[in-house]
């Protein structure tokens, strides 16, 4: 059984980075995107929208991605969060995996890496 993703919350403090990531999602699919510019906004929007998928940057002002991930998973253990980050240090990746990230998407994203991530999420359901 697979799950079809529809609503996506893209969390990144960089507007250009959010735009880049959005453009990597398959055009033929009718995704509904929402955006947040920091971890706190992400948490609030998650509670309000309950999106099918969250993409989470780590280095952000106000509330960082690790904290936001932790808070989101505490609110909803079933939340699917893909960490999309430039911080590719092993310790960072290990930390977010322990906090419940579904997978890590190193920046910069591209269409193939996003497609692969979407397949993994949908196949896991």
């Amino acid at each position: 059984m697979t799950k079809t993703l529809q609503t996506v919350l893209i969390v990144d403090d960089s507007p250009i980075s959010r735009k880049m990531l959005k453009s990597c999602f398959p055009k033929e699919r009718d995704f509904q995107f929402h955006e947040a510019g920091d971890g706190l906004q992400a948490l609030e929007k998650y509670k309000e929208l309950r999106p099918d998928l969250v993409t989470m940057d780590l280095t952000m002002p106000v509330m960082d991605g690790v904290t936001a991930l932790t808070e989101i998973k505490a609110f909803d253990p079933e939340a699917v969060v893909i960490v999309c980050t430039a911080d590719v240090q092993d310790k960072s990746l290990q930390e977010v995996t322990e906090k419940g990230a579904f997978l890590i998407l190193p920046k910069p994203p591209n269409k193939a890496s996003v497609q692969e991530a979407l397949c993994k999420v949908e196949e896991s359901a």
Partner: protein
Amino acid sequence: MTEVRISQIRVGETILDQPFPAGEGTLAIMSEDERDTLQEMMNIAFGRAAASLAEVISIFVCLSVPCVQLFKGAQLVSYLQQFVGPFPEISIVEESFYGKMEGSAFLVFPADAGGQLVPLFGDEETLYEGEAREDVERDALLTTGGILIGACVGKLAELLGDQVSYSPAKLVARTQEKTIPAGLCDPGSIAIVLKTDFSFREESVQGFLFLVTSQQSIGWLKQALADFLAQYEG
């Protein structure tokens, strides 16, 4: 001691937050999108640099949101001094890079950072044995700085479709007045400054990296940014 110094450096960050007051017209040199893209590239590049360093020594680098600013050459030295003064001594690893994008990278550490970094490279007793303490600490700083600068600038250049070569890294420990080479930038030209703060979680060493590239690189840089963004359009 180290933490006090750095907190003062960070306070200084707000002093010249807007290097080009509205109305001077210089902000138009790069659009908001271009600066945002460059900032994101710096974020990616420094993230890779941190991972490269972690492969060599067991250290975790805490990253921060980088910033990109444009300065008139005449303002650059006083801007940079905001971050390094009024401390009596700091250590800077300096490396120049050459390619379509040319400039200099400066990794700024507190003066005592070398001593804190040495244990990360191995057994202290062995490392210091038969060597002048100063030389060992200098090597630790140069190695750390060389990896961070090389990996960061290299990744940034790769993202921009460029390949750069480097001058050998050198360590400068100077007093505040002489920290920034006066001839770094032509007073009449524009400098792009990419700055990122970092800290090493295990060692309480904090510092920042800034890259300065000259006005001559701007035309090429704008095109490279447009090319990079083009792959995400359509």
